[in-house]
């Protein structure tokens, strides 16, 4: 793989950009791999990447039914933060956030990580107390956050209205090192690095069955034929339930639709991410100038990748209260993704009833920020067969034991 650099741009400019290579290969599947990963989204590709990088396992296939990064990786609002209350969540999200800081250098691919700061607004007395508590918990966990007052909120985000018609802004939980990244680039960067290590990324290849013998997976049936595997790793977000059913077990998980929308592009007016959970809306500005807006989830089981207009109305109403400046903006497009919600709204990184089959899912509405940490933890689980310190608390046995990872920030929406 030729490295991307300023020199490469100069070199290619001199020869009419004729020398760029394909970023990743388009191989035909081999008969057998050491590890097959189902799902070439951010989490699946990150799992493959850290399997190769941390454990030297490169005889790996990543199978994708659509195109890589075409599911929730390409549909989220790109927010990265790690200001969680519970220790296991803070640990894995902070690992992910710290890996994002060096991801562009690590992958030699510009993921446009922008640590512009994330504010979660406190708009009731209870929220003030809750976020102060989270700030103290974060201090103990080694996650840098602080609780700031309304004047500081206004200083960091001049377009905000502190005295909304329903709820005033009383302060915010501020994580200066949080921010955004280019979501597609994260998938593309990992895919390029995996392909470079000799892994096969097989797109347009749907898994239709899981073949097992004596409690061990032997391979998967796909639309491109049977592919044998030493270990199987299921990383398919919204379709985790379908894959689990093929493998013969059931998950404490339900699929619902979450939607987002963006406005027409405008000049830079907001260089921070703001989440307002009481009125329910969150917004940031993309590098293209669009206001990126996160909407609500539908409350019912749903596999349609679209949203519904009354949720758009609710979200936009909340944001117009918070940012009156956007009231005349036109919305450019709106879309939905299928998220997998667990009982305690925390993810599952787990062994399964099949000995050599592992599952990573249940990231619900907050998976993008976790991609590198999730891949790191999943790679360790797949390579060693036992979860490491990051994944240990996220086993699905926690639902039997009642050992939930109950996140106060995990409202089921703005997670």
């Amino acid at each position: 793989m030729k490295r991307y650099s300023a020199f490469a741009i100069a070199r290619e400019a001199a020869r009419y950009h004729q020398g760029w290579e394909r970023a990743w290969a388009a191989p035909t599947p081999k008969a057998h791999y050491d590890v097959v990963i189902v799902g070439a989204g951010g989490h699946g590709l990150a799992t493959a990447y850290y399997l190769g990088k941390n454990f030297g396992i490169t005889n790996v296939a990543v199978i994708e039914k659509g195109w890589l990064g075409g599911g929730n990786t390409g549909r989220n609002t790109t927010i990265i933060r790690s200001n969680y209350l519970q220790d296991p969540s803070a640990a894995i999200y902070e690992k992910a956030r710290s890996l994002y800081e060096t991801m562009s250098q690590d992958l030699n691919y510009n993921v446009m990580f922008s640590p512009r700061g994330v504010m979660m607004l406190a708009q009731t007395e209870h929220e003030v107390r809750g976020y102060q508590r989270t700030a103290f918990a974060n201090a103990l966990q080694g996650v840098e956050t602080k609780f700031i007052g309304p004047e500081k909120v206004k200083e960091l985000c001049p377009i905000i209205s502190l005295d909304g018609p329903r709820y005033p802004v009383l302060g915010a939980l501020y994580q200066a090192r949080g921010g955004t990244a280019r979501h597609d680039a994260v998938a593309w960067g990992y895919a390029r690095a995996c392909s470079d290590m000799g892994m096969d990324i097989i797109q347009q290849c749907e898994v239709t069955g899981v073949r097992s013998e004596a409690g061990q997976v032997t391979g998967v049936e796909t639309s491109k034929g049977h592919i044998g595997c030493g270990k199987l790793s299921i990383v398919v977000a919204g379709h985790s339930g379908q894959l689990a059913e093929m493998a013969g077990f059931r998950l404490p998980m339900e699929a619902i639709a979450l939607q987002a929308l963006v406005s027409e592009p405008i000049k830079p007016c907001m260089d921070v991410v703001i989440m307002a959970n009481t009125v329910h809306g969150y917004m940031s500005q993309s590098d293209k100038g669009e206001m990126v807006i996160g909407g609500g989830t539908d409350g019912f089981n749903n596999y349609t990748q679209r949203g519904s207009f009354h949720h758009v109305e609710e979200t936009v109403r909340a944001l117009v209260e918070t940012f009156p400046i956007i009231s005349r903006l036109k919305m450019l497009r709106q879309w939905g993704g299928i998220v997998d919600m667990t009982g305690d709204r925390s993810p599952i990184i787990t062994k399964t009833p099949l000995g050599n089959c592992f599952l990573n899912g249940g990231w619900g509405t907050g998976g993008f920020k976790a991609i590198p940490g999730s891949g790191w933890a999943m790679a360790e689980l797949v390579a060693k067969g036992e979860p490491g310190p990051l994944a240990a608390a996220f086993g699905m046995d926690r639902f039997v034991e009642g050992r939930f990872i109950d996140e106060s920030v995990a409202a089921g929406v703005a997670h």
Partner: protein
Amino acid sequence: MLILECPYCGVAADETELSPGGEAHLVRQGPGSSDQELESYLFGRKNPKGVHFERWRHSYGCGKWFHAARCTMTLEVFATYSAQTPVPPKNVINAIKAKRPDWEGWT
């Protein structure tokens, strides 16, 4: 916008008038159950891609709980029916089979 007909008051209610209540026909587990049974009752869900039986409440209407059979892929509603039944009634099953001949049936 999902529109469900409330089997109690007969109103064709918009989604905004209703509250979703999750999977229907779960068998309640009590203090005598095993950990696995309780886990399955509280968190284990069929989560099908296709025909789904679920509970709804006509919150901003008559306030009654009722059941609906709906497709989670197309949002097509096959039938709504009374909540006072432990299994989907025959006419609901038939209504689904008429539109989804490949459907494997309620289990």
